[in-house]
């Protein structure tokens, strides 16, 4: 990838300004401000998130990590506009949102539940464009194009159940790309594929981020994955959950599964985040 090399020497911050001419550098792509989410009312009310702040700059890759059950998926539902926070606000390019905005495409956790088994890969990928009123021929042309982008040019006419888990997740990613979103929101997207496929998909998403200049927010419980992918890692902990740390990942791009993970800094960052999560679990709530 040629684009990778140009990005290699730039830090995430400077990339922010360079890659988004239509957005002032000061305006984050996606922002959670003092978000609070409470489920239920009265005695059974449970506050899951409180005073939560997350900022994702244009072109930035941010991972959200935290112990399981901390409220990562709840936060992601807020960020994607699917859930309205009880208090605080979500802003997309400076605009407060109350419903899913067109700038965001979501890749859901379980591809086998989010891909439609009665449609071919092509139809699945083309479906979101229907919401945009794109004509059928253009929808399918676009779908073919993005399927080729994720390396599935030959699988357009296959049904999801004819594809391996990794390929199905590629279709789900292609579907998000076809939507032409500026921000990709992913909920543990690689949790149900084998390790090798997982590495391939991680590199695919990094490459797509570079090539398409999109922002990515990815929730994971895998700290290695978070450090490997991110410009910044947001660590959630406690109950109700809040951000206990935001870790700048200064590791050089392009990242490499063997080289990057062999770096001393990688081990340090990983250790720091893991330590924080373990510490938060020991601390009394």
């Amino acid at each position: 990838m040629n684009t990778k090399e140009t990005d290699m020497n730039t830090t995430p911050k400077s990339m922010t300004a360079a890659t988004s001419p239509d957005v002032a550098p000061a305006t984050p792509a996606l922002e959670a401000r003092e978000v609070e989410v409470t489920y239920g009312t009265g005695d059974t009310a449970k506050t899951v998130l409180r005073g939560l702040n997350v900022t994702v700059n244009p072109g930035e890759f941010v991972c959200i990590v935290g112990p399981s059950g901390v409220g990562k998926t709840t936060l992601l539902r807020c960020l994607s506009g699917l859930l309205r926070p009880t208090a605080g606000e979500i802003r997309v390019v400076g605009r407060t949102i109350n419903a899913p905005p067109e700038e965001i495409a979501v890749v859901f956790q379980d591809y086998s539940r989010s891909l439609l088994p009665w449609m071919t890969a092509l139809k699945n990928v083309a479906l979101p464009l229907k919401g945009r009123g794109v004509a059928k021929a253009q929808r399918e042309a676009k779908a073919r194009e993005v399927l080729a982008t994720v390396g599935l040019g030959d699988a357009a006419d296959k049904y999801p159940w004819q594809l391996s888990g990794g390929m199905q997740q590629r279709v789900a990613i292609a579907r998000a790309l076809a939507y032409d979103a500026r921000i990709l929101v992913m909920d543990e997207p690689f949790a149900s594929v084998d390790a090798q496929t997982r590495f391939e998909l991680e590199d695919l998403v990094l490459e797509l981020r570079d090539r398409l200049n999109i922002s990515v927010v990815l929730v994971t419980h895998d700290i290695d994955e978070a450090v490997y992918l991110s410009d910044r890692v947001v660590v959630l902990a406690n109950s109700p959950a809040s951000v206990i740390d935001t870790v700048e990942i200064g590791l050089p791009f392009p990242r490499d599964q063997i080289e990057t993970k062999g770096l001393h800094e990688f081990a340090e960052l990983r250790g720091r985040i893991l330590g924080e999560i373990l510490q938060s679990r020991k601390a009394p709530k």
Partner: protein
Amino acid sequence: MSIAHRLRNILAEAWLPVSLVALWWLVSAGSTSLYFPPLAEIVAVGWRDFTVGPLVDYAAFSLTNLAAGLAIAIFVGVVAGVILGSYAPLRDAVNPYLQFIRSVPQVALVPLIIGALGIGALPKIWSISFACVWPILLNTIDGVKGIDPALGDFSKSYRLSRRTHFLDMVLPAALPQIVPGVRTALAIGVIVMVVSEIYGADSGLGYYILQSGRNFAVAETWAGTIIVGLLGYLLSRLFEVFEHFALKWHRESSAEARSRT
């Protein structure tokens, strides 16, 4: 599948009915009983009425009513089922009435419907659709209710229109439940089709059966009954073929999901 294999399957399915018919033919040959005429006579009379008699017109009348009644039942059952399946408060409000109406024997309502609407095809179509709508409606409600909420999230986050959401997602997702409902409705429809022609009719297979029975033309009565039975069988086989293709994705994807776990 090889031809020999296919042939063996057909034989395995056909030997019993074929031998039963042969047995009936032999045992009934020369029968002088008024109520059990020889099968040879039944077939001859049936053939006569089919080729030069009124049976083709009667069958066309009956099948048209069945098709129209079933079409109305499918449309109403699926549309109402999708609405009730999607909105829980509405479903809870209507559910007791649904459970009550489905328990009412639909066939018993036929004289009432025909009495109220008079003779002709229309009251028969209404009788059929009123009887057929319940299994379709209840199955559609169940199917829509059971849809993975992830699909709703997907539609919302990709800002799909309501129309796309229902036509491209909810309807196909509920189809594996809707189709068995239609299959049940088809069997009910054949019965109500015949019963509806016993009252205030001047055409149809049910009319043929009733008229011949009244005139003690028992061979005709038997012929009509056998024709209805054969039609019902044929329709259900046709439906199986439709089901095979319409739900191929469902069979294959469930098989794939099972093999994964």
